[in-house]
């Protein structure tokens, strides 16, 4: 391998109303992350009560966003994310991970 086999990254995980995913992704993008993954049709429960997509109104659907963030841009990500979470609710978790580079 010409590179280091592992790279330290921050693993960011956001759960938010499906409608606001675009706002989160825009934030991530602007902060300079180089990728993300979105899983749709999650349900959940939190401050806003139970959120279970009912299929009719489309209202109570959550999404899970996963993003491996370079520690260097972590600061911008957090700064950008806070107002979005503040306005729209949702949860953001941060942990340490290693990216198996190749």
């Amino acid at each position: 391998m010409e590179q280091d086999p592992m790279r330290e990254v921050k693993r960011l995980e956001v759960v938010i109303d499906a409608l606001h995913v675009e706002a989160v992704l825009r934030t991530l993008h602007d902060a300079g992350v180089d990728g993300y993954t979105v899983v749709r049709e999650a349900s959940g429960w939190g401050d806003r009560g139970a959120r279970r997509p009912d299929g009719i109104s489309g209202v109570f659907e959550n999404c899970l966003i996963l993003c491996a963030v370079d520690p260097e841009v972590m600061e911008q990500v957090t700064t950008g994310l806070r107002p979005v979470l503040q306005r729209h609710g949702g949860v953001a978790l941060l942990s340490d991970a290693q990216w198996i580079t190749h």
Partner: protein
Amino acid sequence: MLWRMDPSLLLENLRTPAILFFVLGGVAAILRSDLNLPQPIPKLLSIYLLMAIGLHGGVELVRSDLDGRVFAVLGAAVAFSAAVPVWTFFLLRFKLGTADAAAMAATYGSISAVTFITANNFLDNLHHPDPGYTAGGYMVAAMALMESPAIVVGVLLARLFAAPPTSEAEPYAGLGGRAPGRRARGGAARLDGGELFREAFLNGAVVVLIGSLLIGCVIGERGWTSVKPFMYDPFKGVLCLFLLDMGLVAARRLSDLRSCGAWLIGFAVVSAPVHAALGIAVARGLGLEPGDALMLAVLAGSASYIAVPAAMRLAVPEANPSIYVTMSLGVTFPVNITVGIPVYLAVIQWWWS
């Protein structure tokens, strides 16, 4: 008058297959059966219903000869959708915060396409000899026009009466109840006009309905014949399947009722006949036939649970969907389709005769 109403219309309505499937769904949910139609089945069904009603409406529109009265109906429809939110808002502000009151106002000013479709189905199944007992194609146009104005008015109300941004926003009427510091805060002002327009007029449901209406206007009889076996013949059967799901969803919403309060539930129950009566009066004033009058009543009395919630979540995120969706889907919708529609028609029959 009403207390002498012939109960046969009510029974007739409750024997319609679609209504029975709605009841089945409700009973299944209340008995806590695991029956459900997962996404995207309801989405498929609702797109189908909107396409079919729009297309048929467009075809009928071209068939009928339009006169001035049609434009009067359309104008009245738009006026309804814009005016209802205003008084609804000021009434509800006695009990709700600005955001929730505005979202409820938009919800009740806008319309429910499935209520409209169910009323149409009811009229159809009556097989009434008088042709005045069918709805004209322009009523579909009226429905399409009524989806959006209420959204615009609702958002404007939320902004005009929003608390100044520096102060802490109204306490969230939510069901959880964590530290207030995590609460969403007055941000209605941040959504720009373009986004609001897009939500109000380009919501998927609105686009399919208006698009299909326009397509119905241009395809001609030959085009209609070619798609009729899909777009018309199975319509009433698909409605059964959709209402089964509506019954499940509506009854499952009921568990949120407790946290909403009797006052609000009372509003959701009463607003339907009150607005419908207003619709009937306007229909009478415009000299509409009984079929069209019923449709206007139903549009006025119904509340949105697709287009408006989508718009409100973006434009007024401080409002709690558990309130406005529960009220429109769990209370007003069932009231309208089980009891409302036949009662409105009885009133119309009594007044028109």
